[in-house]
């Protein structure tokens, strides 16, 4: 047993500096800092993100996996552009670059689409990490570049062959989205963002989450992710405004959860009501601050930049 912090005091000073720089960045742009509840009756329905349940007055509340729903309720109430620095919680996610509780920067810009938000993200990264401007590739371009395949058009058979050839799997995996994820994390992620950050955008519609889907051919989700030094740093959307479509996506998630024998999550009705009232056209993004500090401090593990990692909590 050890009582000492997992991070050095020097890294904690670096962390404090990064937080200060973030607040300066948004103060200059007149984006409002907000706080929202960590405990909520509704939570994320994603098949692969599990919330931590907490008993309160005989009811179940959930520690938030992201402040997204509450922040969108503020946007619907007319807050204008907002940002938040908050803890977020994910059940059973720990590893070299994961801690079950972590610190997230999430911000929303009214009137921005995902392209404009990528510009702002790029400015933030250059300001904090003193890095070169980011490179941008569509999801399709990056697959063509590293795997010589079009992820939207490739047949299931060809995709599965490619996975089997390149990745030794312990058990059979049968869904297309997971095949794409496996290829991305094993064959693309380690090779991108070595010199400067890389933005990947326009994901397959099946990976839309809370992003708008553009009815191009093929339809793509107006979503982006940021990669730097082999880590995913951020995930952003041109936000879906349609409450009905959002409700349908939640229902579909719950069907998948049921098929896989996972807990059924209460849909956040307050969030859907806010969308029905009207969410302004906006783009939003969540960035992992611990990973950002890792880059600023040149650390290789999240434990080195949080005062007490999960093993010492």
């Amino acid at each position: 047993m050890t009582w000492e912090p997992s991070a050095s005091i020097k890294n904690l000073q670096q962390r404090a500096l990064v937080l200060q720089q973030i607040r300066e960045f948004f103060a200059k742009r007149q984006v409002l800092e907000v706080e929202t509840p960590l405990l909520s009756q509704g939570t994320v329905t994603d098949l692969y993100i599990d919330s931590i349940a907490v008993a309160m007055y005989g009811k179940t509340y959930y520690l938030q996996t992201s402040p997204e729903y509450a922040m969108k309720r503020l946007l619907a109430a007319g807050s204008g552009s907002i940002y938040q620095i908050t803890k977020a919680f994910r059940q059973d996610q720990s590893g070299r670059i994961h801690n079950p509780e972590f610190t997230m920067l999430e911000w929303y810009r009214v009137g921005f689409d995902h392209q404009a938000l990528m510009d702002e993200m790029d400015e933030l990264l250059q300001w904090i990490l003193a890095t070169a401007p980011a490179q941008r590739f569509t999801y399709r371009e990056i697959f063509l570049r590293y795997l010589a395949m079009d992820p939207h058009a490739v047949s299931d058979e060809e995709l599965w062959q490619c996975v089997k050839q390149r990745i030794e799997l312990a058990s059979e995996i049968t869904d297309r989205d997971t095949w794409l994820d496996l290829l991305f994390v094993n064959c693309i992620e380690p090779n991108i963002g070595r010199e400067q950050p890389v933005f990947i955008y326009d994901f397959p519609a099946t990976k839309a989450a809370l992003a708008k889907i553009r009815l191009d051919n093929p339809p793509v989700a107006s979503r982006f992710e940021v990669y730097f030094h082999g880590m995913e740093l951020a995930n952003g959307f041109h936000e879906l405004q349609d409450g009905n479509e959002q409700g349908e996506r939640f229902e579909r998630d719950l069907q998948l959860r049921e098929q896989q024998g996972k807990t059924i999550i209460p849909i956040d009705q307050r969030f859907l009501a806010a969308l029905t009232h009207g969410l302004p056209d906006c783009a939003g993004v969540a960035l992992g601050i611990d990973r950002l500090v890792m880059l600023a401090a040149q650390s290789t593990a999240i434990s080195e930049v949080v005062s007490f990692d999960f093993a010492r909590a």
Partner: protein
Amino acid sequence: MSTISMNDIRGGTKVIIDNDPCVVVDNEFVKPGKGQAFNRVRYRNLKNGRVIERTYKSGESLPVADVVDVEVQYLYNDGSHWHFMAQDTFEQYAVSEVEVSEAKKWLKEQAICMITLWNGQPIEVMPPTFVVLKVAQTDPGLRGDTSSGGSKAATLETGAVVRVPLFIKEGELLKIDTRNGEYVSKAKE
């Protein structure tokens, strides 16, 4: 047979994969943006020495290899096998080159090591963390030669080659850290 879940598997954990005992080299938790979580496990098969990377779903678990570590003294090498004797039972073990693996370059007769037994068979040898070995060959260090970063290669009596400071001479005794193969200091017998 007991099992261990992905979350508890670390470098050094011994597990059974494809019916063979294996030691985990590292285990990385991988979580694609919105996708399913995986563990990328790199492991060395202790019977054939091969290092393999395999991707598991994060919920999976592996059978634990039922192994015991025994403290032994290294006796001699007969050309094909390395021979050890248990400190407490005086039982002798003959270990082949695959199993002795990287440890062989640090082994000097009389050294006290650990060997890992699986079903009574030796599958791995762990040399002492620090060993003291004599320099068999090294070139004289040239003063002011900074092209090699102030170090040079030295071959030790066991055949291991390590980087040492320029002032080290043949015949001197060196303390070496076997975990990373790095020079620690000069040593006295």
